[in-house]
């Protein structure tokens, strides 16, 4: 066994143990430890990625060297390693850009607790990406929920606590359904490792046994994870949570947390129940319909709100809708488009949150539309970044958002029933996106007389400016070099079997 194969397990352990470590450090040192841990894990994930690309096949890491039905396993292919590395980059940029907000909004004595939560969140995301065991996945889903709740409520205001409790309620409903689905699957297959369940499921479908139970399990797990990742009717907690939490939290929550659950759902589709079964079941249709409703209703809500941060939060609801629409197409191309959109949305939404924070800094900290008029003149880089993010969301060529829309449309072509609804939804949603994002861009570039805020220069916020530039570059890289990324995703999906 090559030494590199230990890296995924090491990264999970590293982030897990750095959490408690941060709880005994003071705020400054916890911040440093956190940055070092994320960078190290990013480096480890990149080397794992290079290793898997070179060998061309996925590897299984057995914990404690117990063989298959008894031991717990980690399984790493190209897609898993790439996701881990990408999540680390986004997480690091989000943490760096929100330093000043965290120092202002969180009490001095609680600063280190924030990093405990951030490290545990990273740990659970990595475990969700890498694990080959369904019950381990459930446990880390709960750890993810708890640490995300901590990230929301660390800024102690009435709004954030209320948002945290609403988030917990929705998440617990989702994880209850997920657990029940796993139990049903265990009851008919007697296995917990994903690859073993897959074998048993194939035997059961070949023998036409327990078809209803399998469908119920698939439905419960899909709906559970859909609730947890805020698919449209279950999004009520999201605007408050994203809109009032501290900057790094909003950016991390919107970019990473929901994406971890979506990635787990894709793993369940491909590696646990098998995609053939998903195709013939009606679960995909349900996800498709709710995805489309979410795409449109999320944008409609975003148009109606008068608060910049809440608008970006509602736009997240719409984008989650896109991802579920792609999954609901139940084709290989649809899944590829969805995974690409996961990357694209992670890069764009965190960019928008950071840029919005820059704009509100230049408007006396207010996020209301009437206050941010002309803010792009007072904070030039944030204005440019917000425009870039908006163009990407609307789907301008060169940016990543364009590519994902293109792939969604291509994936829908030739689909007998779903082609027309997809095209119509894409068209309506693009127009709606353009309405609210361009409205905001025009507003921040509308000159106003003096007295609505103060100018913020680049030097004043070096961390945020650097992060903004990195986010814009990441967006352009994803948009201009989409071919290698798409090939990597296809390659990774191939390794899922």
């Amino acid at each position: 066994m090559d030494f590199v194969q230990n890296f995924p397990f090491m990264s999970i352990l590293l982030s897990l143990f750095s959490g408690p470590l941060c709880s005994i450090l003071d705020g400054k040192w916890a911040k440093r430890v956190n940055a070092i841990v994320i960078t190290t894990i990013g480096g480890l994930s990149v080397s794992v990625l290079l290793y898997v690309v070179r060998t061309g096949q996925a590897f299984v890491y057995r914990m404690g060297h117990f063989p298959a039905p008894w031991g717990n396993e980690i399984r790493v292919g190209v897609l898993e390693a790439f996701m881990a590395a990408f999540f680390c980059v986004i997480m690091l940029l989000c943490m760096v850009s929100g330093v000043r907000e965290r120092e202002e909004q969180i009490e001095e004595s609680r600063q280190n607790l924030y990093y405990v939560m951030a490290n545990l969140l990273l740990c659970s995301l990595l475990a969700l990406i890498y694990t080959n065991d369904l019950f381990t996945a459930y446990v880390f889903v709960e750890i993810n929920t708890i640490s995300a709740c901590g990230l929301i409520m660390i800024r102690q205001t009435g709004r954030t606590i209320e948002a945290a409790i609403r988030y917990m309620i929705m998440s617990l409903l989702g994880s209850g359904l997920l657990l029940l689905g796993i139990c049903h699957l265990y009851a008919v297959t007697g296995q917990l490792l994903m690859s073993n369940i897959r074998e048993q499921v194939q035997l059961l479908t070949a023998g036409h046994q327990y078809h209803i139970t399998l469908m119920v399990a698939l439905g419960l797990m899909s709906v559970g994870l859909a609730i947890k990742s805020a698919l449209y009717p279950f999004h009520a907690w999201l605007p408050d949570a994203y809109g009032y939490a501290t900057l790094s939290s909003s950016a991390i929550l919107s970019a990473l947390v929901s994406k971890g659950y979506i990635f787990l759902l894709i793993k369940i589709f491909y590696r646990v129940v098998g995609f053939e079964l998903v195709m013939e079941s009606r679960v995909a249709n349900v996800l498709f319909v709710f995805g489309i409703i979410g795409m449109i209703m999320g944008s409609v809500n975003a148009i109606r709100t008068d608060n910049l941060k809440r608008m970006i939060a509602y736009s997240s609801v719409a984008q989650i809708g896109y991802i579920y629409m792609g999954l609901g197409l139940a084709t290989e191309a649809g899944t590829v488009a969805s995974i690409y959109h996961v990357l694209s949305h992670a890069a764009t939404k965190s960019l928008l949150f950071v840029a919005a924070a820059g704009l509100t800094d230049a408007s006396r900290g207010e996020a209301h539309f009437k206050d941010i008029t002309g803010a792009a003149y007072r904070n030039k880089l944030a204005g440019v970044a917000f425009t870039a993010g908006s163009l990407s969301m609307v789907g301008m060529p060169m940016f990543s958002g364009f590519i994902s829309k293109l792939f969604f449309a291509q994936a829908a072509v030739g689909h007998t029933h779903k082609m027309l609804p997809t095209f119509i939804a894409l068209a309506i949603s693009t127009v709606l996106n353009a309405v609210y994002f361009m409205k905001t861009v025009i507003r921040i570039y509308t000159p106003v007389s003096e007295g609505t805020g103060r100018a913020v220069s680049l030097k004043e916020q070096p961390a945020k400016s650097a992060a903004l530039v990195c986010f814009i570059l990441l967006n352009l890289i994803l948009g201009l070099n989409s071919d290698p990324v798409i090939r990597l995703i296809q390659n990774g999906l191939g390794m899922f079997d």
Partner: protein
Amino acid sequence: MHFEYLLQNYEEAAAMILFGIGFSNLLLQKNLIRKIIGLNIMDTATYLFLALKGYIEGRKAPVVVDGVTSVEAYINPIPSGLVLTGIVVSVSVTALMLSLTIRLYRRYHTLDLDEISTLLKKEGK
């Protein structure tokens, strides 16, 4: 429909009914404490279901006391292990929910989530 299956597997049916009760309480109750009770009913129902799946009639818990090592003598221990893990998860989640409830109650002196939302809107922040 095969209603006789429901009677044969009445334990599983009871677990599912309990799950439904817990789920709808967690979703629909306005009172936060009632929501948390619903959460616990829901989780416990899942554990009941899991424990049932591991139980084999006439066999004992897999603890070797009188030298019997045959697999035939014992029940399946894995679901029991899963139940234990699940209990740990639901205890920590319940503790977190209760602490959040205390925070909200100290601020707004009510346990009604809708009332808290209206109060928040009045604050207008």
